[in-house]
């Protein structure tokens, strides 16, 4: 059992509340990703789980045991830092064995564990090198190796890939996935990169301003966001948002006009008791904003990003205060400044309250 339970966890720095009564459960063996913009409190929460930051109030349970005030080394967690935090005066082998030495593990046992971790991570030839003689990817592996040898109940990763170049980041992401499949240990991973979150996670926790906005499986978060923040944060390019005003309400649907596109209206399925003239936001994912659908909008192409197999077409329209984006897979020719008709299907649209940002289902 190595599940992690957060019960009403709060962290205050003086008068500033960094974490605001967070509740969540990370199941044993789960790969959980904490994601959110800079300053949302995700790293603070991870450090609180590690014991590197005190918990102002609330309870932290690891493997069913209350670890709220336990010493970092006694919690059964191992952490991989963004900057790797390898001891520069020690070799790779010494770095990996240091934690075991500190708890008085026998020499033979240390040797066995270090060589096992080195084998898993392909570090066998680097054991006598110092960190400064290693590349970024190798340092990252050593940092992971140092965590593995301790055989922790929970692995904690604090933006471990953010210092690597794009290619290495993809490679390490795959290696982390394989490692999790192999070790089957609970892993909690902090990132602001939603691609990392979507590709690695069994469960994503989306955070904002010290609060959990939503948690669930990546597909669930993507296809069923609870609010406008989550809808826009998860997904790249981010969700297109159109302003709308409710004109007519039926039992299971509402007619919404789009003030930025005169004479255009959409009928959206919703069971919410909406009032006529209520302001709403309509969210459409870029992949659903293209060449098919019953609603057609006249727009102007502002920029085309060619990614090879697909293109991100950025669009503008009179009165629209932000760019919209269409994800095109078709081979049609699109150039900047030309007019383009973009279509979408109302069933693919998400409806949000303009004021609260909450999803209207």
């Amino acid at each position, binding site marked *: 059992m190595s599940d992690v339970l957060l019960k009403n966890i709060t962290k205050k720095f003086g008068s500033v509340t960094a974490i605001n009564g967070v509740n969540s459960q990370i199941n044993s063996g789960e790969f959980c990703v904490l994601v959110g913009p800079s300053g949302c409190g995700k790293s603070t929460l991870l450090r609180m789980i*590690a*014991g*590197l930051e005190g918990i102002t109030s609330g309870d932290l349970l690891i493997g069913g045991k209350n670890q709220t005030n336990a010493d*970092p*080394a006694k919690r059964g*967690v*191992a*952490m991989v*830092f*963004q*900057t790797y*935090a*390898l*001891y*520069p*005066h020690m070799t790779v082998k010494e770095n990996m064995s*240091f*934690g075991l030495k*500190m*708890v008085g593990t026998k020499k033979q046992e240390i040797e066995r564990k270090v060589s096992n971790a080195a084998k898993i991570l392909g570090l066998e030839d680097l054991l006598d090198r110092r960190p400064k003689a290693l590349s970024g990817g190798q340092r990252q592996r050593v940092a992971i190796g*140092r965590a593995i040898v*301790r055989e922790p109940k929970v692995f904690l990763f604090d933006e471990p890939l953010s210092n690597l170049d794009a290619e290495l980041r993809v490679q390490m992401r795959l290696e982390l996935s394989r490692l999790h499949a192999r070790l089957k240990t609970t892993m909690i991973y902090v990132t602001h990169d939603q691609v990392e979150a979507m590709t690695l996670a069994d469960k994503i926790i989306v955070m904002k301003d010290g609060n959990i906005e939503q948690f669930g499986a990546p597909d669930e978060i993507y296809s069923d966001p609870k609010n406008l923040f989550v809808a826009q944060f998860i997904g790249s390019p981010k969700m297109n948002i159109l302003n709308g005003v409710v004109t007519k309400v039926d039992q299971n649907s509402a007619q919404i006009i789009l003030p930025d596109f005169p004479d255009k209206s959409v009928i959206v399925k919703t069971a919410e008791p909406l009032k006529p003239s209520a302001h709403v936001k309509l969210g459409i994912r870029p992949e659903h904003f293209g060449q098919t659908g019953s609603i057609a909008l006249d727009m102007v192409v502002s920029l085309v990003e060619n990614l090879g197999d697909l293109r991100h077409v950025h669009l503008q329209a009179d009165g629209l205060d932000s760019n919209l984006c269409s994800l095109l897979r078709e081979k049609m020719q699109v150039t900047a400044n030309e007019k383009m008709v973009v279509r979408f299907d109302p069933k693919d649209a998400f409806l949000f309250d303009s004021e609260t940002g909450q999803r209207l289902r």
Partner: protein
Amino acid sequence: MSSRIRTYLGEALVLFLVVVMLLPIFYMLAMSFRSASEIAAQPLGLPTSFDLENYSNAIGSMHYVRSVANSLGITIAVTFVVSLLGSMAAYPLARKSGRVGRVIILLTSLSLATPGFVTITPYYVILNNIGLLNTYAGIILVYIATNLPLAIFFYVGFISTIPRELEEAARLDNCGDWKVFWYVIRPLLGPATATLSLFVMLAVWNDFLFPLLLLTDDSKGTIMVSVYRFLGNFEIKPDKLFPAAVLASLPLLVLFVIFQRRIVSGMTSGAVK
């Protein structure tokens, strides 16, 4: 002015400064090979031969080995204790204490500004009262007290540049404060310790006043006090004074050569990422 001329002028200035700095050393070396009568007749003249007689005479009349051993023992003991205690005191000041720590650092840096001679009388009285006057332990304690503020000030600055994540990683590796300091922080202080050691060694080795007053027994005198004995009230013995001065500088020169690489890296550490 073209950049080439500016470069030449710059180099000429550096060369001039080097000559100014080396001139006294050259003078000391040149005089050490000349007889007293030669120096009296022509104070700025060059030696006509490189006879080592002056050196053997100086060594014979100044208890050279004994006084070098005294200086070496005191210097090494002070440097070791100052660097150890200084780093141990600096770690919590750099990392843990808030306002209180800043006040302590401020007081420490203020004590650096206190002129040394102001403290001589109190030190003399204290050592006399506790029975440590004219003992190695007494003068070592005094030197530790006078050099510790420099060490603390020095280490606080250096430790502040060590990433906190290293300590956090060590805490997760089952290290308490002491183990974090001993196994993670202390080994990283090598370049800083080498630089600090140089400053402390120079200060202690070259000091004249404290050993003269606090070590009254001739056999306990340091090398600087021995050299000074050739400067009498009514006469100077230049044929012994200059070789003695050269001999007094030698051990320090050897230490500097040994530590040079680490000292330079300590002085430049933190300059680039």
